[in-house]
């Protein structure tokens, strides 16, 4: 399985400071496979602007290496992820459960990114809410089709 990468910036850090699209894709895939056990495949289509009604979860890595990791999904997929994490039907989960589960997904991926960089950094708590248009260019964008819906993962190194 190959992942999809969009517009790597020429100014990206190199060597041990760099998170490759393969390594980020592997982290996302590990979460989808091990933690969520959800069917998924890489999405090779063209990226579309993040719809304003999508959910976004983000963590910030700060310190000697800095980046923001953001994930986006429609409410239907976020609820499906929550069902997988809680092992419960959608109708018994409330909105807080959905946000909790979605935030934990970005928290786990972000922690793995921080571990790979292995520098003096701190990981923020996850922040979850409705997606807002963000003009900041991303260093990496990876997309997966998860249960027929798109999960977008963006890493912004800045």
């Amino acid at each position, binding site marked *: 399985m190959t992942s999809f990468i969009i517009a790597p910036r020429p100014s990206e850090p190199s060597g041990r400071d760099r998170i490759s699209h393969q390594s980020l894709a592997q982290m996302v895939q590990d979460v989808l496979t*091990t*933690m969520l056990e959800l069917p998924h495949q890489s999405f090779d289509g063209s990226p579309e602007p993040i719809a304003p009604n999508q959910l976004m979860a983000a963590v910030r890595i700060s310190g000697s290496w800095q980046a923001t990791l953001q994930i986006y999904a429609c409410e239907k997929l976020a609820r499906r992820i929550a069902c997988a994490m809680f092992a419960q039907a959608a109708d018994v989960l409330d909105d807080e459960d959905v946000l909790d*589960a979605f935030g934990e997904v970005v928290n*786990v991926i972000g922690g*793995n990114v921080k571990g790979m960089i292995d520098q*003096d950094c701190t990981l923020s*708590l996850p922040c979850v809410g409705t997606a807002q248009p963000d003009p900041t260019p991303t260093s990496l964008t990876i997309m997966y089709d998860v249960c027929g819906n798109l999960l977008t993962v963006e890493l912004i190194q800045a």
Partner: protein
Amino acid sequence: MKILIVDDSRAMRMIVCRTLKQTDFSGFTVIEAENGIDALNKIATESPDLVLSDWNMPEMKGIDLLKRVRDSGNHVRFGFITSESSLETKELAHEAGADFLVTKPFTPGSMQAALDPILT
């Protein structure tokens, strides 16, 4: 055996509990705490045999929880279940007296491997 799971995410507490049930271990009961303060109270009142704590939590990080527990003279077995797998994190955990660290995402196998040395 009584196991205290400490995580601010209810979803993650459920996953940890479910994964424990998928290991070969049996005969344990699970109690939960949603932050460090809650955990300190439950450690005092419930006397768990094992604490499984997240690292990155609001108000009190897992490492500070462990330090508070050890500073009080409590030597309960304590492990971290965290997405933060850096060498620095592992060294901090070890120096503070943690028994093990399991990296998220985890499997029943990785949980079993971490718990085997201290529960068998």
